[in-house]
């Protein structure tokens, strides 16, 4: 499969990237790792006139402590999140979730910012960042703004990003002292989640977030069983709505059990 023709502009700085995106308007798309966008281009499901390659912008790939948050640069690859010693120690949930994305080759290329901006309803990361109550830093022509992950996902492949804005950082609270787990259900190892569940346990408080049970991730704090029963997943080849609703409950049990362990 071969994509339609497009122009590629390489941005060497964030400012340049924002300018190029602004110039391109609606016909421009940002290209980071490319693992969400390039498959769509090849199937001609997307046909932008211009791609702005942001993959080489310096200084957007990092994982570091920043005040009471762990800050992750938008261009940080899934493999780096997966293997981060800092995250393993202080926010294992994110590392564990990243390790479940696609396969090694995909994780070597795909980025945290790209995946969140793409907002696939069966992606793994959205469940984790919603459970974590992470913040997503968006930078646009009018400067930076901080978005709550819990308000970021708006619909099928839709986010709170404004046209011309890019994700530049993801900020997660450390889970020091809390238990967590991400449990994913799929039929074949490398695939998207049919349903995935991220769970955090702090003392008696249980937080659960699901992916794959609607167009956007779903958060449950408190009575997650009740929340699970109200889910309205979309039935498709991978399972009926009823089955996915059932899976959401099973996975929550399992994720919470592991989080407590």
């Amino acid at each position, binding site marked *: *499969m*071969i994509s339609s023709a497009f122009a590629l502009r390489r941005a060497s700085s964030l400012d340049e990237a924002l300018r190029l995106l602004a110039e391109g308007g609606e016909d421009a798309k940002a290209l980071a790792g490319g693992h969400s966008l390039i498959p769509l281009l090849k199937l001609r499901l997307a046909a932008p006139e211009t791609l702005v390659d942001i993959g080489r912008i310096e200084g957007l790939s990092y994982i570091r402590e920043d005040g009471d948050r762990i800050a992750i640069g938008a261009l940080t690859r899934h493999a780096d999140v997966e293997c981060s010693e800092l995250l393993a120690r202080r926010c294992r949930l994110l590392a564990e979730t990243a390790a479940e994305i696609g396969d090694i080759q995909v994780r070597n290329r795909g980025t945290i910012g790209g995946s969140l901006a793409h907002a696939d309803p069966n992606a793994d990361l959205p469940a984790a960042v919603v459970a974590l109550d992470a913040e997503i830093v968006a930078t646009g022509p009018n400067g930076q703004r901080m978005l709550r992950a819990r308000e970021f996902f708006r619909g099928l492949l839709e986010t709170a990003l404004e046209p011309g804005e890019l994700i530049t950082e993801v900020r997660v609270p450390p889970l020091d002292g809390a238990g967590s787990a991400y*449990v994913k259900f799929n039929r074949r190892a490398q695939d998207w989640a049919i349903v995935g569940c991220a769970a955090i346990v702090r003392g008696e408080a249980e937080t659960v977030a699901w992916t794959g049970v609607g167009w956007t991730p779903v958060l449950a704090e408190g009575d997650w069983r009740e929340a699970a029963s109200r889910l309205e997943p979309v039935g498709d080849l991978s399972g009926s709505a009823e*089955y996915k609703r059932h899976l959401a409950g099973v996975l929550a049990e*399992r994720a919470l059990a592991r989080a407590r*362990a």
Partner: protein
Amino acid sequence: MADPAAAEPEGEQFEGFQGESPQLPEAEVGTPQGKGIGTSTLRKEDAELIAGQGRFVDDIRLPGMLYLAFVRSPVAHATLGAIDAARAREIPGVIAVLSAEDLHFEGGVPCGSNPTGDARQPTRWPLARNRVRMVGEPVAVVAAETRHAAADGAAAVEVEYDQLPVVVGSEEAVREGAPQLHEEAPGNLCCSIRYATDRFDDAVAGAEVVVRQRVVNQRLTPVAIEPRGVVAQFQPSTGEVTLFTSTQVPHFVKTFVSVVIGTSEAKVRVIAPDVGGGFGSKLNTYAEEYVAVAASKALDGVPVKWTESRQENMLATIHGRDHVQDAELYATREGRIVGFRLNVLANMGAYLQLLGPTIPHLTLFMGTGVYDIANYSCRIDCVFTNTTPTDAYRGAGRPEATHVIERLVDILARRLGIDPAEIRRRNFIREFPATSATGLLYDSGDYDKTLDRALELVGYDELRARQAEARARGKLVGIGLSTYVEVCGLAPSSVTKAIGVGAPGWESSTVRVHPTGKVTVVTGTSPHGQGHATSWSQIVETELGIPFDDVEVIHGDTAFAPYGLGTYGSRSLAVGGTALYHSLRKVREKARKIVAHQLEIDPEDLEFGDGRFHAKGSPERGMTMAEVIGAAWSADNLPEGVEPGLEETTFFDPPNFTFPFGCHVCVTEVDRETGKVEISRYLAVDDCGRVINPMIVDGQVHGGVAQSIGQALFEETVYDEDGQCLTASLVDYMIPTAFEIPFIETERTETPSPTNPLGVKGIGEAGTIAATAAVVNSVCDALGVEHLDMPLQPERVWRVIQGLDEKPVEAGPLETKGGGTS
């Protein structure tokens, strides 16, 4: 595999079912005696492939070559309106846009199958004329200077489709008022194949037990990892055609290209270079092959290349299976089977490809499996629908046969409270050769032996005891058996003729001994992963004493090989290997005459061993093969009537099929909460007659079983009611990864075939034929239900478990599903 989601946090994993993790075999390079028959000699094919130096079709580039891209129907059924290529022609790099009006064909894509003599074989033009009947049907082709321009051109061609009603399921297709595909096939019926033993109805009328089950053998997509591709050139000055194509049957392609294009067959050269898997999907000739040659011809001889995308592969390359079967098994209360009735609706898709109705015809022939069943009735209705044609997919009709009889036998065992192993023993055929209910002559077999060996290796009794214990703890653990026989070594030509296959079943070989003692073997088989170059060289070493490494094997190029039928149906060794054996024996006998003449000994008094002839009783009096080769070449002292040189050709037509058999055992555990099935142990005991290379045989079993596990648990080609294929990518059509497939334990018994002097049978399809029943029987056993249709995706299994929790499941079908259409 341990699966994070499947692991039940509170409970321990079921213990004791895991087979031994396989020991790392020592690299074997042949026995001290060499690399001949029976040794696990490493493959000579590998050196290029592991270094990235293989040559597949898309690796081939000819000077001035243009790229082709097809315009394909996006709708399943329509009258074809205007084709507007104006916009496409303006795209830089686009050289031509060609439709049916621009390309001349003498005929349609050939079908070589007419089991009943009156099968409807509607013409399918390589490019659609007037009407399209499936999504993906080629309508026009764009030739351009680059891949990119060709793709842009194809996307810019505008075609009018006046849509017609669509039918996708075989059961819907035969209903009153169903949309009709072909005028010449009223009721969408291609043919109805019927067979019954004498007075079948009377014979089964009084049976004590009758087991009925509807079994859906779902539609599958073969998915060779290399999609198809062609590079074609037509030389206008001479009319010569050169066609590189990813095929299992280069000679068929050569013959049919000459017929469809209308040129002398002597001018057509077809080359199958390295071929990246076939599994039957490349046992065919396809529209794109004819269109590529015709396009080169229309473009004054410019070479053209077409490389199939995966999406095209999922739509335009054949599919497999798609049988809806209604089966009835008649038996005594003691579990002795007295009769079997099998009615099949076989979905042919929109057109017939090469073998269409012959595939379910093979199901008919093998319907009674390993059992001594005197009374058999089978009816197969082959029907057209607005879907991709079905044809030979690994096993081709025999997996469908094995699956249904093995399912019914298990249901019978369950109804009668007899152990599945025991009920099989009560019904095995035991005297060989055995004439089956369909009149096939099973050449040799020992079904008890493979069953007993399998049960011994898995520790069956202990396994059952531990299963009971696990069940008591609430675990859903199952043990499934599949005892199978398949028909291979296709085929005696008198039989292919009799069953309406328009091609014979012989195979050819040439053995050319060079003056330096090196050997070229030219074979009519066309391997694509089976390792013929290795196995054939092993046979040469054993038969002529010429070292394995001194043998080169040429295949897949019609300019070099005598006519050959190709590689499919687990036939290559039994038929092509035997052709080679006979050529080698001819060389040996000629050599014997030369030695006898030169040493003045009676040929009968010569013995051959270790590459040397010598007089019986006086080993010092003899000639080495190298000396004989020199003598045959120098030709100065040959016996009267013996021609110079050492080169022999054989065309071997087998006197019978071969009948490999075996017993597979599968142990599964089902996750009660999610319905996910995990295979904790898989054991295959196969008997494929004499083994040339055990390593290669094991590899064939591993791959076949994995594909069959794919069918049992993961794979299904799904259409929506508009005839859109919902599984046209490898994201949606799920072939398993390394994580889903367990280690496959293999074991063999060796019951030589009397059909050929090598005693070989064939192993390419055994795994695929045996395994679905083993897996499904295991899961049914785990759940304590009679039947489940494939694939056993978690939701389907979970729903059954839900039902179990509510009420004990009664006998009879639990869940059924339209033939690949839901």
